[in-house]
């Protein structure tokens, strides 16, 4: 299968994503922000970085790129879109996912390996995981504090759309050790149709043992299985 990896001015994780796809045994193609062509991709990755300098707000300008119009259409048609870090911020600004990412509670840029608990395996991005499994995946961001209205958070939880939460190494609540102070320790969520995932941590930086963890590869492998099986993960109301 083929992953399309979006490149905006200021994107910095596209090559790491391409390497993770290579490790997973598949091909990738870069998608320039000014183009509208998705290059025949089965899954579009919006990688990490500082698109357009993150001026005004993170992801606020990238959302208007010509490429994003195609990504919006692709997602509306059920296409798989994986937003990592800045990609998650762009997806929220584009209203493909609810909520917003704000300054870390610590006001610090945090770059470290964190522990994520898989909250649901019923998404095309987590099917190769086991619920409650704890993954070691790095974060690298200054604005990753997930914020949304309480009613939105309740609905995300009721619909099992929280994909990952920050936890302690043993899977227990992270408490004060949260890297950013996200509401309800949310690290990643999926869209209503479950075909769009946004997550702050970087699975592509944990894609082979040399990097200290290969746990992130499970997300890429999940996507590959979903595309191969053409699995629909929509949850009945």
């Amino acid at each position, binding site marked *: 299968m083929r992953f399309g990896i979006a490149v905006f001015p200021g994107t910095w994780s596209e090559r790491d994503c391409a390497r993770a796809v290579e490790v997973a045994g598949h091909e990738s193609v870069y998608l320039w922000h000014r183009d509208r062509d998705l290059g025949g991709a089965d899954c579009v990755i919006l990688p990490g970085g500082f698109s357009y300098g993150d001026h005004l707000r993170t992801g*606020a300008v990238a959302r208007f790129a010509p490429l994003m119009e195609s990504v919006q259409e692709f997602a509306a048609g059920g296409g798989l879109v994986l937003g990592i870090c800045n990609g998650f911020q762009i997806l929220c600004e584009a209203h493909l996912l609810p909520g917003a990412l704000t300054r*870390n*509670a610590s006001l610090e840029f945090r770059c470290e390996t964190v522990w994520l608990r898989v909250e649901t395996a019923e998404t095309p991005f987590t099917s190769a995981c086991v619920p409650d499994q704890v993954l070691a995946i790095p974060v690298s961001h200054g604005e990753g504090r997930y914020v949304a209205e309480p009613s939105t958070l309740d609905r995300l939880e009721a619909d099992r759309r929280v994909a990952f939460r920050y936890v302690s190494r043993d899977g227990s609540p992270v408490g004060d050790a949260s890297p950013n*102070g996200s509401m309800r320790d949310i690290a990643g969520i999926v869209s209503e149709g479950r075909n769009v995932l946004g997550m702050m941590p970087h699975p592509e930086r944990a894609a082979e043992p040399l990097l200290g963890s290969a746990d992130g590869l499970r997300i890429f492998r999940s996507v590959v299985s979903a595309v191969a099986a053409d699995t629909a993960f929509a949850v009945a109301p």
Partner: protein
Amino acid sequence: MRFLAEVVISLKPVVNDPQGLTVRAGLRQLGFDEVTEVRVGKHIALEVDGDSEAEVHRRVAEMCERLLRNPVIEDYRIELRPSAGPVPAPPAAPA
């Protein structure tokens, strides 16, 4: 006619503002104990051409809705007045 539109973007009251808390702590450190709360926002100044204040206000509100603020976390306020002239150019960069 030309207007100066000043847009003030503030975090919604329900959104925690760690920058504001840090500034408050700094002010208290300096002895300004009377400060009970600090919220940090953004100020955006725009020079806008238009026929009437009402029309310019409507257009700037649309700019806020579509780009300048994030409705999930931010509120905005617009202040309009006739422009006093062109925005001064930034100082020239050293050669």
